[in-house]
């Protein structure tokens, strides 16, 4: 592979890059193909850094690459594997491609702001899905429930954050010195009434991720209705479904008519009531920069039983990253409806330190109440559950 790309470099008419640069450019191309974003000026810095370091050894090249191409620490193992593949030809690229094929399909309904974006697909079909994947369609009950209350109160209930922008105000603000001073200068130095301003505040984004696996079947109807109400009440709200795949259904739920919106959402998701691959689905979410931007500073609520099958390393690492991104990370699980519930499965125990809340998600009423309480401080789930376990004498 590397040799083919090298040949391309040489055949480019007018290319003045020395032949020695080809492996480094190959490496950058390989990184881009595997989802690393490398800007052209980073490539230039990489070449300059290699030259500065000698390079006296391959380790120098590796260090130059890490320093200038800045792979996120979570992906440094993949970065190293690609480095070995390109510079040592150890055939790891092929192996990594196979790993890619196991990745969760990302389905993005797009929207007004994302109309120009192509459908994000990391896999061409469902042929490589795990044995637990089962694709199906669903019809939803659109009866009125807790969603009415959520829709009425959500705009005022979401915690707010100050933006950089300032608003002019008549009271309760700081003195706008620039404008006040301008007034004074215009009045030939006479003191006028001070002008006031304050920082603009906006509601934080609610990002609701709904587990639609078979084990959550009973809750899915209510959750979808809540999601529709949330999108209607707070336009910045984002809704994703996770199962064996990851689907963004915000656009479908923007339709004001709930029946129609739920029909559209139902049609846009393929894996209703299928298997559970929470970790890989969250990993797929975090692999799309635009989705990551949606999570940044948001209130991320994962409505799921958290019953991850098999190895939960992906689940844990994804939750760790989400916790770093989000303003508040919450897990609403139907299991917590039972007072005897303790987060003692390996997966739940591993994600507990990263959660701000672990709450009852057994009914849409309970979840709506929780969402409306997001303006209050988070108790930090790990501490909360340690206290509970301690009280129960565990």
């Amino acid at each position: 592979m590397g040799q083919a790309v090298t040949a391309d470099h040489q055949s480019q008419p007018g290319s003045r890059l020395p032949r020695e640069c080809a492996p480094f450019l190959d490496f950058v191309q390989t990184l881009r193909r595997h989802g690393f974003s490398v800007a052209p000026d980073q490539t230039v810095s990489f070449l300059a850094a290699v030259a500065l370091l000698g390079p006296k050894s391959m380790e120098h090249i590796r260090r130059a690459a890490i320093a200038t191409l800045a792979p996120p620490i979570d992906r440094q193992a993949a970065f190293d594997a690609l480095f070995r593949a390109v510079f040592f030809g150890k055939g790891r690229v092929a192996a990594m491609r196979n790993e890619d094929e196991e990745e969760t399909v990302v389905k993005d309904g797009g929207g007004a702001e994302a109309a120009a974006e192509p459908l994000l697909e990391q896999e061409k079909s469902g042929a490589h899905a795990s044995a637990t994947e089962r694709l199906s369609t669903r019809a939803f009950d659109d009866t009125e429930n807790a969603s009415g209350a959520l829709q009425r109160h959500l705009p005022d209930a979401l915690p707010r954050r100050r933006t950089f922008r300032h608003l002019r105000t008549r009271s309760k603000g700081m003195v706008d010195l620039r404008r006040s001073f301008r007034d004074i200068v215009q009045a030939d130095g006479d003191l006028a009434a001070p002008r006031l301003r304050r920082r603009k505040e906006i509601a934080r984004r609610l990002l609701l991720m709904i587990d639609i696996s078979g084990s959550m079947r009973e809750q899915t109807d209510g959750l979808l209705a809540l999601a529709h109400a949330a999108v209607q009440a707070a336009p910045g709200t984002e809704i994703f479904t996770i199962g064996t795949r990851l689907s963004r259904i915000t656009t479908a739920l923007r339709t004001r008519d709930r029946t129609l919106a739920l029909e559209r959402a139902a049609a846009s998701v393929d894996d209703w009531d299928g298997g559970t691959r929470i970790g890989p689905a969250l990993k797929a979410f975090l692999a799309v920069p635009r989705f990551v931007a949606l999570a940044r500073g948001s209130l991320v609520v994962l409505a799921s039983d958290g019953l991850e099958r098999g190895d939960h390393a992906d689940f844990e690492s994804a939750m760790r990253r989400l916790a770093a991104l989000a303003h508040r990370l919450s897990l609403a699980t139907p299991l917590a409806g039972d007072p005897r519930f303790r987060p003692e499965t390996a997966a739940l125990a591993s994600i507990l330190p990263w959660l701000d809340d672990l709450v009852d998600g057994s009914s849409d009423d309970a979840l709506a109440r929780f969402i409306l309480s997001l303006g209050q401080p988070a108790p930090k789930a790990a501490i909360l559950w340690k206290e509970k376990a301690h009280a129960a004498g565990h």
Partner: protein
Amino acid sequence: MGGEAASDVLSSPEAVAERFGHCRYIADEPLATAVFLAIRLGKPLLLEGVPGAGKTEAAKAVAEILGRDLIRLQCYEGIDAQHALYEWNYQRQLLAIRQAKKAETDIYEDRFLIERPLLRSLRNPAQTVLLVDEIDRSDHEFEALLLEYLSDFQISIPERGTVRAGEPPIVILTSNRTRELAEALRRRCVYHWIAYPDLARETAIILARAADVAEKTAAAVARAVSTIRSRPLAKPPGISEAVEWANAATVLEKTGSPWPEAFRRAIGVLLKDEEDLAYMQEELPRILEESLTWGRP
């Protein structure tokens, strides 16, 4: 170029590591390489890592090895241009107008400009080291504000025009990674992840930083701290806590506490979370015993 003069001093990553050693900062080769590249490429250095791994100290050490002034901008939620760039001294401007009466006066002179860290680092006649500490605590808008500065080492002041650095500062940003930084910011920087040091390096750090600690004590502390860090603690101890623990235990030992007891009594210097203390209470004696007897037949 960030440091033409500095490049004379910093000829290679090995030279950087050696100079770090002179100012009692024990840097590993990858960090020395990142510092060397950042200075020679004239790019900001982004240091990410867990709290207590020595990111801020690294920036101070860079200022020390280069003999430059360190200007520190501590980031926090809500930090804005007035705190980071500049502000006009409105009271003085008003007084100037009053004093001038009908005469014309320029109220945007230097004497009315209050320099904040970013502007100060640009206008300083000598090259400075600017530490933008804990950038992950600031808002995204503040990150965007920094982009012009980090790309071109310049700041635009509407009333004055663009201020460019005579000699571009050496910029070091640190982040505890409590949130993801924007790609645009990362792209402009040379990047290095500072992890906790290995046993040998942590022992060397303790010996270099602690006042009166024996080599065996430093090694035992490094081993014990390494084991304690591997447990799921709310606040894993950083390097400075390890140094303080070695110091405190040594003081207690010299005033009559035998070794394992001295470490146990000084544990509050290492673990500063009640739950962590409770969690480690049972296991701590065994960890201390193993650390103190490690390597003995």
